[in-house]
């Protein structure tokens, strides 16, 4: 009887450990098109800012080139592209999505374009705490077919609640002040960097990467790869 109970317990433990199985997919399953098309050069378009922070776009732009190249892609110099697109009168808003991706093949010779939508880039305070939230959606489209090759979205929330240990009302007041100061000082940029790091873990490795075409079996979270509701 005892052994039976133990076995049941182990079975439950194993079940809960593997419970997340169905929510995982391999990179090959999620992004088969990307492995088929093998884009080498990526053009990162100016981010589309849907957040309330006006400067989010410009600051976000400083974080994406480096990690993308480390995943093996040729990334066109973002500052140069931004400047050319501004001069040629391209929209830097949601309208950018309506420009046919094929256009960027003619203009810059890009194999694929990356759209970045900054959904959230904000700070919230409440009586006893606060947090900073950055939420980004990434989409790579082929400039040959116009199809979506890669898609990922995620949110990162960093708690900025002050950590002082004074009890009572005095402690609460102190903590509120501390939270406000800490939240204001928390820079979004490191959070955006961490978010990029997590998201790009799911991108198929590009030509210059040592794991190019060797990462197809890597498992990633399925829900982040689906279109957002």
């Amino acid at each position, binding site marked *: 009887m005892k052994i039976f109970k133990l076995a049941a317990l182990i079975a439950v433990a194993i079940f809960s450990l593997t419970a997340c199985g169905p929510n995982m997919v391999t990179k090959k399953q999620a992004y088969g098109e990307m492995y088929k098309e093998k884009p*080498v*050069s990526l053009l990162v378009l100016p981010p589309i800012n849907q957040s309330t922070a006006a400067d989010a776009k*410009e*600051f976000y*732009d*400083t*974080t994406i*080139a*480096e990690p993308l*190249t*480390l995943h093996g*892609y*040729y*990334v*066109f*110099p*973002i*500052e*140069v592209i931004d*400047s050319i697109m501004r001069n040629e009168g391209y929209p830097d808003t949601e309208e950018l999505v309506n420009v046919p991706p094929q256009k960027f093949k003619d*203009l*810059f*010779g890009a*194999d694929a374009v990356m759209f970045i939508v900054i959904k959230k880039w904000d700070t919230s305070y409440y009586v006893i705490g606060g947090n900073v939230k950055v939420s980004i959606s990434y989409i790579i489209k082929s400039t040959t077919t116009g199809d979506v090759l890669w898609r990922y979205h995620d949110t990162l929330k960093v708690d900025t609640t002050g950590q002082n240990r004074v009890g009572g009302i005095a402690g609460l007041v102190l903590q509120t002040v501390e939270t406000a100061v800490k939240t204001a000082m928390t820079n979004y*940029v490191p959070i955006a*960097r961490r978010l990029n790091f997590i998201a790009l873990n799911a991108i198929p490795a590009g030509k*210059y*990467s*040592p794991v190019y075409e060797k990462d197809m079996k890597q498992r990633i979270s399925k829900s982040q790869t689906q279109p957002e509701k």
Partner: protein
Amino acid sequence: MKKLVLMFLIVAFFAVGCAPKVKPMYYWGNYSQTLYSMKKNPGDKTTAAHQACLVQIIKDSEAHNTRVPPGVYGELGFMCMQEKKDQDAIKYFKTEETTYPESSVLMEKLIASAKSDEKSDSEQK
């Protein structure tokens, strides 16, 4: 005795298991930081700092015998072009193109525009 040797071998195996050093793919230096400062406080000082960072990335990459990261020559060339150093700009654009042939459509465009800038500048003189 055999066991001892085997054990020793296993220990030795684990001890060196993590030894091979992975060489970084690219040296990006302080790129992200200097670019951020330039955008946050635009001005000659922050622009010069970012340009110095790009030059440093090229030096570091050469010293470690790794490829200069994508776009670095291109961005440096573009900064030179804005300072009307068109000869330097053309040189960097060409290096970007030979390092990364994928960039050739954009680089040829930039080279053409640097050449025409140079021409119009010399005509003004």
